């Protein structure tokens, strides 16, 4: 079962959102689909999921349904740890 990484950004994106979206793309390239599923929610399309998770601000990263990052743009080490906790074998 792949680890699920859901990334939330506002519209228009703030600098933190831009950074997190770019990071999501890098993870999607680095890991095959059978290991990691990356979903991006931007702007109004994000509102339904955003409210479902009861998030309070963006950027945000949710791993396997658990909020790991909210309101800041993390570095990759922090995201690696969050994904590792979500069962992803980091390399």
């Amino acid at each position, binding site marked *: 079962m792949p680890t699920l990484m859901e990334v*939330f950004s*506002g*519209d*228009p*994106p*703030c600098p*933190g*959102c831009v950074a997190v979206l770019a990071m999501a793309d890098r993870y999607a390239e680095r890991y095959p689909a059978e290991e990691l599923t990356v979903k991006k929610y931007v*702007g*109004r399309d*994000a*509102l339904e999921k*955003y409210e479902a998770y009861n*998030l*309070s*601000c*963006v*950027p945000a990263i949710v791993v396997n349904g658990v909020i790991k990052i909210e*309101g*800041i743009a993390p570095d990759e080490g922090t995201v690696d740890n969050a994904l590792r906790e979500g069962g992803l074998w980091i390399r």
Partner: protein
Amino acid sequence: MIEVKVFGSEPPCAKCRQAEEQAKRAAAKFPGQVTVEKCAAQSAEGLGLVLHMTPAIVVNGRVVSEGRVPEESELERVFLSELGG
């Protein structure tokens, strides 16, 4: 009545939330005289204002801050001048 609109991203980023809360705190100093409304920067109204950065605070149709969270005292001064103080 002073009309304050806080334009931000949807969903809101941390700064957009702070700007909204700051506007509400400043408005609370002028009970019954100031209304604060959260608006989407990508709405027709937001686009019409040609905002360059979010959050943006608009007081009675005039952009008073953009791309930052203003101090409460700064907003109070704006409200006072709008009230003719």
